[in-house]
Structures are given as structure tokens and as C-alpha cells.
């Protein structure tokens, strides 16, 4: 059995996690103060996941905004971060855009959408 120590990145508390596992098979996660920590610890050993935040170009904004900020609607595999970042190049959306609007579907084949995190009228 292996033991891996991690800092949970799910919130700013940053709990120190102790994950016991055999290869990718997680046996226990301790040190977490909420259930999200357990999920993080488990994923980080098996398949690390991240939320990616970025911006894409927007046109037709009333107040001159050139960008709309955005994020992956959920976690995507860490291994897909580069593909996700590259997928946002060349994306240009039309205002108005509202928080939660889908800007890119199924980004980099992750099954996760890119959604807006800002209102641009």
C-alpha cells in the first residue's frame, strides 16, 4: 500500500490530505474537513480533475466589453487542460451573454461545456 500526502484544492482552506492507495485504487482519504476533500483525494490519485477558467472574445457589447469570462461547467481531467485552453482560441460569441450561458459545448471532448461567468449586455 502507498501513502500520498496532498493539499486539497477544493477551497481556500487547503486541507492536508493523507491518501492511502494501491496504485490507482484508493483505500482511504483522511484529513479532509468536507466530502469534497474525499472526492478530490480520490480523483487526484486516479484521475486528477480541474475546473478551468478563462475568457473568450465577445462582440456587440453595449459597454465596450471585449471579453466574456467563462469556466468549465464542471471538473475536466487535468490531462485535458491544454486541449481545453486551445479550444477557446478563435471562439467569438455575440452579446448579450448571461451567466450560465453555454459558450462551447463538450469542450475538448470532455463531455463538459464552457459556460459564461459574466453578464455582457
Amino acid at each position: 500500500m502507498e501513502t500520498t500526502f496532498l493539499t486539497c484544492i477544493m477551497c481556500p482552506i487547503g486541507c492536508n490530505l493523507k491518501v492511502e492507495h494501491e496504485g490507482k485504487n484508493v483505500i482511504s482519504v483522511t484529513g479532509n474537513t468536507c466530502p469534497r476533500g474525499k472526492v478530490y483525494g480520490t480523483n487526484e490519485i486516479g484521475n486528477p480533475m480541474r475546473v478551468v477558467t478563462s475568457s473568450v472574445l465577445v462582440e456587440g457589447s453595449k459597454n465596450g466589453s471585449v471579453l466574456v469570462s467563462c469556466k468549465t461547467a464542471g471538473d475536466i481531467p487535468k490531462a485535458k487542460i491544454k486541449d481545453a485552453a486551445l479550444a477557446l482560441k478563435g471562439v467569438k460569441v455575440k452579446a448579450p451573454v448571461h451567466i450560465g450561458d453555454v459558450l462551447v459545448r463538450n469542450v475538448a471532448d470532455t463531455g463538459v461545456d464552457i459556460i459564461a461567468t459574466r453578464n455582457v449586455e
Partner: protein
Amino acid sequence: MYDVIIIGAGVSGCAAARYLSAYDAKVLVLERAEDVCCGTSKANSAIVHAGFDAVPGSLMAKYNVEGSLMMEALSRELDIPYKRCGSLVVRTESDPREGLEELLERGRKNGVEGLEIIGRERLREMEPNISDDAAEALWAPTGAIICPFELTIALAENAAVNGAEFRFDTEVTGLEPFKTADGDGWLVKTDKGDFEALTVINAAGVYADKFHNMVSEKKLHITPRRGDYYLLDREVGDFVSHTIFQLPDDMGKGVLVSQTVHGNIIVGPTAFNIEDKEGVNTTAEGLAAINQKAGKCVKNIPLNQTITSFAGLRAQEDGKDFVIGEPDDAPGFYDCAGIASPGLSSAPAIGKALAEMIAGKLDLKKNPDFWPIRHGILKPSDLDLEQRTELIKKDSSYGQIICRCESITEGEIIDAITRPLGAKSLDGVKRRTRAGMGRCQAGFCSPKVMEILARELKVPMSEITKSGGGSKLILENLKDGLSEESEGLKAIAKWAADREKAEAAGKEAENA
């Protein structure tokens, strides 16, 4: 064909242009930088010296005293800040007793008025933060402070509206004697083409030896002497209220502490003779030297309130004096070289003298339309509430604050960009308006100023520079450079690939 070509748009060159514009003459100023006041003139102590320091009989003594006497009236004509705060040269217990007497004597010989040596008590009354070690001081009531940017810019603007031409981003590469129909002249070669003139003024700062030596056999040699400075927050602006000098020694005038016309405190300079004529970088050694020396005459200087440090180069000619006028072997070529301290103080007198020399040589008539008055950038913060309200009603851009530290409005920035010889860069705006000169050092306002520059100059924001040339602020638009090849993203791709490999290897092992 120009009557005069002036090489260099520093304070001396601009002063010469301004006084020449009072004559009916065709004047061209060539400047290799993108703006006026980009060399020695922009980084110095901002002091108008009373004139007691220079050796009697020297050009430095002559022009300093004359310049200092001209400065107040000039500041009113040009609408720039000037404050006669007076200066003190402090002798500490460890300094030689005769030091101040010597300066007093020199000052009297140079014709400086109002000099007196004052005792410990009066000194402490005038400057509570004077060091405990201070014994007495030479009080020079005519010592003053000025803003070197505004002086240079105002001289240039006034010259321009009176007909002088300015070409920026134009570097002089050669000088050749030239026969013209009107007599002997000079062919001035630049990276933007050649220009012809009857006379040339060499006001090229630390490069003045290079141009002089192109035309004269009596060689000059200028050593750039670097001075590092600290500028302190206005919060401690009343730390001293006069310019406080140390007693000069073999190493120069020492480190001064002074108020500036804008209410900051300036501490410096150091004195390092260097080779590089572009070496305006501060060094750890230089900054440490200020720390070490500054406290000699003033105690507890709040250096923790530093908002910026910078370095400037003084053009020190080997003869230790200004070199002004025609060399014997190059008629029509006028040096304005070796303009080290007290160059700023002397600039109006030097400019006027050069103009008179050339007017005599070319028999120039007075310019009947010469208008000596220049109006500075309107500052809403100088107005009362009612006037300010009226102003904003007429032009709403004066209601929008762009630089929060110095309370500079959009209206002032637009004025700085659109007036004669207007600002083209962030530093150009900064030197004209003070936007970005406060305690946040442009952190807040620089994107906004870039936006206004882009709008007024009708260029994309990504083309705005800090100070012209290659000083681009923005390297590209977002996403433009993002690609499969982006180095920063390769690490994560490599991590993913390694992981896949390890997994494949694991599976193989399992299968085996």
C-alpha cells in the same frame, strides 16, 4: 534650408529653440527620442541653484546666476510651477570649519544675493529634522525648485507655437560643412534623411562630445556621471521645507534632500562615473550609497516611503565647465556641451545667450509675432468648486478622474495628448500631467491612460508604448499567440503523455 538646427530636445536645446523663436528664423529641433525631455533633463535634482557653488569666472557661475534670476519670471510666462524655497548647505561637526566661508565667498564673487551663514539654533527652527550633528549652514534665499519636465515641455511648446519645428525619433548620424548660396552651412545627416542649416546647436547632452568631435579638432570628452535618486511619497512631503545640501567635498555636492514642487521629497544623487551613455539603470550599490550618505545632514529620512527610485546621467566634460559657443575651427557650429549641474538652473540663460550669438551671426530680425506666453494644462484641482462645476459642464472629461493618486482627470490627459508637441506615450502623459507619478506608480491608471492614448491617437491599444521606440507595453492580443507550441502548456501535455505511457506500461505488465 534652416537658419538653425538644434540637436537635442532637452532643456538646453528647447531653451535655445524658445529664445530663437523670438527671432525671425527658421528653426528645426532634431531629437532621437519620441519626445522632449527624455535624457539628462528628465532625471536630476529639479533644483534651481542659487549659484554659490560654481568657480567664479566660469561659465557655470555666469549662466547659473543669470538663469536663476530669470527663472521666476520665465515660470510665470510659461505657466509652470516654481517655488523659491531657499537652500541650506549644512556643515556638520566633522566637516572642516572653513568650508562654508569658502562657499560664501564664492557666492559673493558670483553675485548671488542674500547669502548668510546661520547658526545651529536658527537652522533647527527652519528645519526640525536637521541632524543633531549639524553645526551651521549657508542660507541661500534665492535657491529654488522647479519641475524639469514641465520647464522643458513648456519651452518646447512655446518655441513650437512661435514657429520652431520639431522632429522626433530622428537621430543625427553625421555633420558636414556645406556651401550654400547664403554662405557656409552644415549638412545634418540623420536616419530620416538630410537637413541643411546655416548654423547648428549641439545640445546633445551626454552625446555632445560625439557631435563636437565630428567638426572640431579641439576634442571634447564627456563622461556620463550617474546619479541615483529616491522619490518619497507626498505623505512625508513636509519632512523638509528647503533644499538641504551637504558640504561639497572632492566627491561632489553630496546627497541632497529637498522638497519638490509637487510636494514629494527627493533624496540624491550619487555620483558614479560610467562609460555607458545609456546607463540610466539604478544599481544596488547606488541605492545603498544613498541610504548610507543621505542621513549625514538630515536625520530619520523616511526612506520606507519611497515610491520610486531612478537614475540620471550628468554630462561631465573634462574641463569641468560648460562649453558654450563656436569652436574656432567650426564656424556656424555652436556647442552647448558639458551641461552638467547646474545645467537646469542655467538653461534659460544658456538658451538666451545662444539665441543672441546666432542672431548676431545671421543678423536675424525680431519675430514680430513672437508670443512669450504659454498656458499650461488646465488643472481642475487648482479651481474652486464652482469653477470646477462650470468646467465640467463645458467638458465632461474634466469630471472623470483617471489617476487617483494625483487626482488627474481625463480632460487633462486629452489636453496633454492634443496640445502642440503632445504626448504620444505613457511617459509622455506622465511627464505632462503627473498621471502615474503617484504612490501606486501607474498600477491603476496605466490601462486607462493607454486607452485614452489609443483613442486620441487613433491607434490600437496594443501599439501604445511606455516611452516610444521598442518600449511596447502590450506584446499581442489575447489568444493570438496561443498555440499547440505554447511552451507554458507543454508541461501539462508532457505530464499527460507520461501518465498515459505509465498506464500503458502498467497494462502491458498486467497482460504479461
